[in-house]
């Protein structure tokens, strides 16, 4: 009980500092053919907060964040960024709002090198309007050095890199451009323990900088370790959301598998009726 009180106090302080959510996704839906991939889902994110999106395979997590990142046009619903309704109809729009995404599929151009991928769409140019490959490689070496110090293969196309190295490139790309809102769709799926730990450190660092992060993960341990809140999806609908301290790991598993919303969580439209 005392525990809950302190959490509430912290929450009150947080709300004072930033009572406008960084991102507020309201009642968003999208259907592919007959499949309601996302069905009236709502979730919000505050500065310096990490919100986990959980759910079984095919629950609609990736689709939901792809709506936020501009990859899919939504059928209905609204997105607010810092309190104002955001027009996001393609990835360029999302980037203009400071939304950076690490896609589950990584979305790398396999035939060009790491630096070209890091700067894809935002190349550094020389005075004469030509690509400044040397400067881009230099930046790439810097940021990759932070994420994956063993990485040396800057000249090769990313198709020849290992799964983890490719994931590092995708992460580096997302953090290179001062994101305000970061979406990470299973960012550590292919990483070794050391690199995973590094990403954990990175998330904590970004959090301190006031960046809001959506983290999609299947690893409950990681979620409890890194996240402030979690939201669970099932069959495209929100089962509910909760502060990490208010629910147990078993209760979260119950939300994911059965759609059962525990007392510590706020139920959503997808919660099982009792």
């Amino acid at each position, binding site marked *: 009980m005392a525990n809950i009180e302190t959490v509430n106090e912290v929450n009150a302080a947080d709300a004072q500092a930033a009572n406008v959510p960084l991102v507020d996704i309201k009642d968003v839906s999208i259907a592919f053919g007959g499949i309601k991939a996302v069905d009236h889902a709502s979730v919000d994110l505050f500065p310096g907060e990490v919100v986990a999106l959980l759910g079984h395979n095919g629950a609609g997590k990736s689709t939901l964040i792809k709506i936020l990142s501009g990859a899919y046009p939504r059928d209905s619903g609204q997105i607010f960024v810092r309190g104002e309704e955001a027009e996001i109809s393609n*990835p360029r729009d999302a980037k203009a709002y400071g939304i950076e995404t690490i896609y589950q599929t990584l979305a790398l151009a396999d035939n060009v090198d790491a630096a070209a991928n890091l700067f894809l769409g935002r190349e550094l140019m020389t005075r004469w309007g030509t690509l400044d490959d040397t400067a881009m490689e230099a930046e790439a070496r810097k940021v990759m050095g932070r994420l994956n110090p063993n990485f040396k293969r800057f000249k090769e196309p990313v198709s020849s890199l290992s799964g983890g190295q490719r994931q590092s490139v995708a992460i580096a790309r997302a953090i290179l451009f001062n994101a305000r809102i970061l979406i990470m769709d299973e960012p550590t799926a292919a990483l070794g323990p050391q690199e995973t730990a590094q990403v954990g450190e990175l998330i904590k660092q970004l959090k301190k900088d006031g960046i809001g992060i959506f983290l999609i993960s299947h690893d409950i341990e990681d979620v409890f370790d890194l996240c402030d809140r979690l939201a669970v999806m099932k069959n495209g609908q929100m089962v509910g959301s909760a502060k990490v301290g208010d629910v147990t790991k078993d209760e979260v598993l119950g939300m994911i598998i059965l759609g059962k919303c525990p007392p510590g969580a706020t139920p959503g439209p997808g919660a099982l009726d009792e």
Partner: protein
Amino acid sequence: MSTENTSAQSAAEKKGSIARFIEGTELDTRMLGMVAALFVIWIGFDIASGIIRPGAGLLGGTFLTPRNLWTLLVQTSPIAVMTTGMVLVIVMRHIDLSVGSMLSLVAVAGAVLQVFILAPAIGVGHPIIWIAAIIACLALGALVGAFNGFLTAYGKIPAFIVTLGGLIAYSGVAFLLARGVTVAPLDKSFKLIGGNIPASWLGPFWSWVLAIVACLLIVFAVVNGRAQRKRFHFPLRPVWAEASLIAIGSVAVIGTTWVINSYPWPFGLIRDYALENNLTIPAGVENRAGDAICMAGDKIVRCTEGLIFYAGYAVPVLIVLAVGIVMSFIASRTRFGRYVYSIGGNPEAAELAGINTKLMTVKVFALMGLLVGVSAIILSARLDAATNALGQLSELYVIAAAVIGGTSLAGGVGTIYGALLGALMMQSIQSGMGLLNLEAAFQNIVVGVVLVIAVFLDQLYRRRIK
């Protein structure tokens, strides 16, 4: 430190000097293979043609002569220009089957403009005519290309179908425009672009100047690249490798220029030029094998010593050089090029990175069309005429040249210089078989087989380096 060095060195020594050379210079092994294959083809044709009819070639045939090599370069030009555009189209996972028909359409339109519209209106030979014709050809090409790209990108029709339709339809338009007849003769200045009259040849002096400038540029590029890498503390190529690169580049430039400058004007052209300009023709002894002209009594005859002119680079070859440089620059140094390759590597990723892939598709097809316009100008100027048959089937040679040059039909991979080499190889095979007096039907068989074998070898090569 020193032990590490020596162990690295001994490891390198084990690899053999050729492997070490390639590694140090970072030369594209695939390109080296193509150059080697090209030389083998040339040598083979020279020997084979020598058996039929001994000539002045390096190996006793008629292939490796300045005359044949000079002609080879000029003949390669229209295909070479279009191939550089096709590389980008294929890299972006599209195809353009309509370039041949587009070429006829543009050439006929340009000729109709000169012969039937402008010449009667403002007078034959007016300087506006050739300028307007060039602009019209380039603009029409770009426009038709953009139309292809628009249907592909925004209509979501596969490029294969769009341009297959174009292949059929554009040649129909060309036929209607020309009403099936040959439109000729073209404007005098326009003809210069075709490169088969002395006024469109650079001559030895300016060809050498060009060669020297090219060599200096090679030196500059190597030195500048090294300075850049040094500034950012990146690993550097060994100095001997940089020096070899300069040496190889310069030897290639100087060698080509030397061959080009050894091609004497044909007998009739020297005679006409001498008579027109009242040049004194020295007296001499007739020698039917000579390339110069002289007076034997009051007759102008061929002889070894006498009045002679050498051609140097012809305008179409200069155009290919310029197009090759510009297109390589676009492909590797500009944002546009980077996007083309990235889209080819992963269209979805490019879209997610915020690239407007649809607009890029339109632009790439428009660029292809522009280059078709350039080729249409060269080809019609060279023939001094345009018909709706001009350029027919050239799409096949253009695509074949790009693919032989290492452009992958799966997208994402291909180089401009590779495609230019591919075009040269295709044309070498064709010209060579012409010298051997092989039937056209047999030539087609060989070209088809070469294409398939080239792609097969390419697959093998790619699997090995993976």
